[in-house]
């Protein structure tokens, strides 16, 4: 009798998350929970202004405060060649400002003291003399002929342009536009947002002079990249650096980059020879660390009158803030923007992209997103919506007419990606049926007669999740693959380590389920450990929904290596040749005599007590997994809304989500990820953004201004699934953590635009605040959300 896989917590089991036990009890171990003997505390002084030359910094009064151990300025860092550090996008970023401050909240000085109160007092005692400079808060200002040069520190930087980049086929695309019946255009802005994990960034650096070893406890999603980066920046030998990422209170891309606070805390520990803790406050996190989005689109679709898309032309302008520090594969300047339109069968496409510097915080991190895929899919689905309106074709129908067919995989997209599998029409139709599309259209028409505004929005997309392969994907030259190491103990229990790092995704549960699936060892018998570079195998970390596609695949592969060895042991125990052995979950048996068998646990015991001659003892192994391709999940999200024509307030009536993320390892965790993603999608479409006034003051620097939706506002979600196994992933799984954040926003915005269809308005920039919707309703004009906010506007 084979084992019931669900009972041992294998694939498909709705296992309760083992990590929740400690989180719910308040027993998580976050960086700020860690207290080391003799530990000092660091606080960072930040710039109150967005652009200014630093005339002088007077730290004398800070030094006078009892309990202050160290005061650091950019000048002192410069003496050690540490005032600037490389970013993840081959730019440089100031660690502590020396010449100028370039955004509000930039790190200017740091104080290390006996306790955080003293450190903060001392920061207030530092006097900085700023000479104000003109401020730039959007690309138009940045590219104006007389614009002040933000990056005057860089040789050969004569304007505020970061890059020009292009991909696709310009000529063929021009041809397609020349032949089009209709050209549909759309201009919009995806506002700056912030991943805003509940736990802010922080570190404890502990340099031990006696061993020359540096241990850093750090809030990082990618400890191994950090180890490499620290080795390069601080010029310390890599084997003398240990990065420990303990429990992490959410990352969402925010905890991928290297931040000045980490670097300064390391230097402070080296100088004081004591552990130094730095914990950012919420405002520090919101105004200085990696933001998401902040990108403008001019999009055009070449259309045939029957709704077929003949060509795509996109120009994006991305606002990178003062330093180009996007966390993204180095080959691609605007992330995977060119994954746009991957679910549609389109002959040709061309994308041009410009990046600019502004006096805003750097970042451009993949906020719950696979490198600007969120923006790509939002642009795509807003453009498709507008195209349907322009052609007078039904929203669902235009998508159906352009989808890549089920039998057309692998499919080369117009921008050159290779999508792997999918059943797009099936997903959309399932969603339409669930929402009763036809019924809603009738209801909408009835409501319209009474002056009520109902709308329905559709968003369908496939997105590339799980970078690499390593040929095309690297960060700072470090190739994107992952590893797993599995040690099966004598009694059949096991420890699994990977190079990924869970931040709430549930790796400790999911990885054990993969082991259970591959080996028949109950998930509860497998402990999962991640985040310590001294013990975990190498990996590129957790972001861009790459855990299951890459690290998860490595878990499968290492378990299969274990199984291969166990098979040899089983043959030895059963005294038959290996070819006569069959495997069923958790047990090898003799093909001709199925009753004769040994369990995986018996093999484990034998691995340490009774191995065949010539075999190494033990049942341990590791596996590196370099994915052959990205995984391509598909999703159809449909939202219905009602807009109050008098106030512009809109309520979500229903949200239907159909996700095809391949095989689901733990359906409950997958559903949780989708609901979380939809919540963030709703937030971005309705309330969440960071903006700036003309002086570069950040609006969105605290939770009164930067809004996270609560259970009160968040609509209910109706989830459905389709399963198209990933053809190249060992267990057929695809990434999913970010699908709903990526695909969700357009569903909400398209729904509101649908409700406003009669006004002729083509676009309202997110978030669709009631004010903006009301303005569109009353003026019939598009509403831009680009900064600055003008308090004197009427």
């Amino acid at each position, binding site marked *: 009798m084979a084992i019931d896989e669900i009972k041992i917590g294998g694939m498909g089991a709705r296992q309760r998350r083992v990590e929740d036990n400690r989180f719910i009890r308040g027993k998580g171990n976050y960086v700020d929970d860690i207290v080391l003997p003799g530990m000092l505390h660091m606080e960072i002084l930040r710039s109150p202004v967005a652009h200014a030359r630093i005339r002088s910094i007077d730290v004398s009064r800070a030094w006078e405060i009892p309990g202050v151990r160290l005061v650091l300025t950019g000048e002192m860092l410069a003496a050690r060649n540490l005032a600037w550090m490389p970013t993840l996008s081959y730019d440089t970023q100031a660690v502590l400002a020396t010449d100028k401050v370039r955004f509000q909240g930039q790190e200017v000085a740091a104080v290390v003291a006996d306790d955080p109160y003293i450190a903060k007092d001392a920061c207030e005692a530092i006097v900085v003399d700023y000479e104000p400079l003109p401020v730039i808060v959007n690309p138009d200002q940045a590219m104006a002929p007389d614009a002040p040069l933000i990056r005057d520190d860089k040789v050969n930087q004569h304007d505020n342009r970061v890059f020009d980049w292009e991909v696709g086929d310009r000529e063929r695309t021009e041809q397609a536009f020349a032949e089009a019946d209709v050209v549909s255009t759309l201009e919009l802005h995806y506002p700056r947002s912030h991943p805003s994990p509940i736990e802010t960034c922080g570190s404890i650096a502990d340099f031990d002079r006696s061993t020359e070893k540096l241990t850093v406890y750090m809030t990082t999603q990618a400890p191994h990249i950090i180890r490499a980066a620290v080795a390069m920046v601080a010029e310390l030998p890599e084997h003398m650096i240990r990065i420990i990422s303990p429990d992490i209170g959410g990352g969402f891309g925010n905890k991928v980059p290297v931040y000045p606070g980490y670097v300064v805390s390391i230097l402070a520990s080296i100088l004081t020879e004591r552990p130094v803790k730095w914990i950012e406050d919420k405002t520090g996190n919101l105004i200085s660390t990696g933001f998401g989005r902040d990108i403008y689109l001019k999009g055009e679709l070449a259309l045939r009158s029957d709704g077929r898309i003949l060509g795509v032309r996109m120009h994006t302008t991305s606002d990178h803030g003062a330093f180009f520090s996007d966390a993204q594969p180095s080959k691609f300047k605007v992330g995977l923007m060119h994954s746009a339109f991957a679910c549609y069968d389109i002959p040709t496409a061309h994308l041009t992209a410009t990046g600019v510097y502004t006096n805003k915080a750097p970042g451009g991190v993949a906020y719950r997103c696979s490198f600007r895929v969120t923006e790509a899919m939002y642009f795509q689905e807003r453009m498709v919506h507008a195209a349907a309106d322009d052609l007078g074709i039904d929203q669902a129908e235009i998508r159906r007419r352009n989808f890549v067919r089920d039998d057309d995989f692998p499919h080369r997209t117009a921008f050159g990606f290779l999508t792997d599998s999918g059943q797009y029409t099936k997903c959309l139709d399932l969603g339409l049926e669930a929402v009763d599309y036809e019924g809603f259209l009738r209801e909408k028409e009835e409501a319209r007669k009474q002056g009520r505004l109902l709308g329905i929005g559709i968003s369908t997309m496939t997105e590339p999740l799980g970078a690499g392969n390593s040929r095309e994907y690297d960060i700072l030259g470090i190739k994107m693959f992952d590893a797993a190491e599995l040690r099966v103990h004598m009694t059949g229990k096991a420890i699994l380590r990977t190079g990924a790092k869970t931040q709430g995704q549930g790796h400790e549960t999911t990885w054990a389920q993969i082991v259970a699936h591959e080996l028949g060892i109950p998930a509860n018998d497998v402990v999962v450990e991640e985040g310590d570079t001294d013990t975990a195998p190498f990996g590129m970390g957790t972001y861009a929904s790459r855990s299951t596609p890459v690290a998860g695949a490595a878990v499968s592969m290492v378990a299969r290596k274990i199984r291969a060895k166990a098979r040899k042991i089983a043959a030895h125990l059963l005294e038959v040749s290996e070819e006569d052995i069959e495997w069923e979950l958790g047990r090898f048996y003799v093909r001709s005599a199925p009753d004769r068998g040994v369990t995986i646990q018996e093999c484990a015991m034998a691995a340490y007590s009774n191995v065949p001659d010539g075999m190494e003892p033990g049942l341990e192994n590791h596996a590196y997994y370099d994915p052959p391709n990205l995984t391509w999940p598909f999703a159809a999200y449909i939202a219905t809304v009602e807009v109050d024509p008098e*106030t512009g*307030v809109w309520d979500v009536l229903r949200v239907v989500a159909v996700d095809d993320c391949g095989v689901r390892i733990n359906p409950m965790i997958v559903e949780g990820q989708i609901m979380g993603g939809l919540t963030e999608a709703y937030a971005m479409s309705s309330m969440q953004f960071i903006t700036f006034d003309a002086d570069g003051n950040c*609006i969105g620097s605290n939770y009164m201004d930067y809004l996270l939706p609560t259970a009160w*506002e968040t609509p209910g979600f109706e989830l459905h699934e389709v399963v198209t196994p990933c053809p190249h992933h060992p267990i057929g799984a695809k990434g999913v953590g970010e699908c709903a954040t990526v695909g969700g926003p357009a569903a909400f915005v398209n729904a509101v635009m649908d409700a406003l269809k009669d006004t002729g308005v083509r676009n309202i920039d997110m978030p669709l*605040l*009631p004010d903006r919707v009301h*303005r569109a309703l009353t003026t019939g004009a598009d509403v831009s959300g680009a900064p600055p*906010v003008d308090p004197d506007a009427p």
Partner: protein
Amino acid sequence: MYPSRFRYEAPTSLEEAIALLQQGAGEAKILAGGQSLIPLLKLRFAAPELLVDINGLPGLDHLVADPDGTIRIGALVRHEHIERSTLITERQPTIAAAAPLVADPIVRTRGTFVGSLCHADPQGDWAACMIALDGSIVAQGPNGRRTIPAREFVTGTFENVLDPAEIAVEAVIPPPQGEAHGGYLKLERRIGDFATAAVAVAADLRDGQVSRAGIALVGVGATTIDAREAADSLVDGALGPEAIDRAADLAAEAAHPRSDHRGSASYKRHIVRTFTARILTQLDRSTQKAA
């Protein structure tokens, strides 16, 4: 949170508290619910030398009605207490309508009604209700008690008329002149957000005529705005579409909003008008239905 250094005292009598405030000589702050003060301390926007915690003072947690219908709300009455009070839901519709809209449920369990009035935030809900209701604040200091009308209480953004050694001990809502009606509508981007704009309306009706009215506006000026002309336009007349339109127009005129990330000035004024009209229309409908 790492606020500036301060001394903390928790007196057990009002006299002791007042004496401490006198010692503090203007550098002391009263801690009641702390829902505004603690964030200010955290951000170091406020750095008082002394915190006088009044939570241990006896006799300040009353929420009662006098025989004549006057409602008294003690300095330690939490928002949540008001939200759940049948006295309020049965007798005071303006307050009852605002109570569930104050901040979020967590803040409501700690924050106090009187503390909110003292904080004098132009976005505060209760100040608008108190102005619309012709309420007053009773303060006690070294020289005894005095009563201050709500509309004279606030002198500017986050500023009130209290002397440094005075404690606001209760809020007083006078009895209605007839039947109490009213409402409160607030536009917020999210629960717990400050109002984009909000409107408090109180209207006492006698024989179908408005005997007394108050309208106050939130988040559309440097302080809570008393839309006196709008309210006065309703008095001694019946409610009806014309009267409602006139009052709503006057309320919108009384607003002095500024554009910000919550909305434009013209939009906020539009919301004031819309909400004033909605509350009055609802009130008109419900009284007609009752009649």
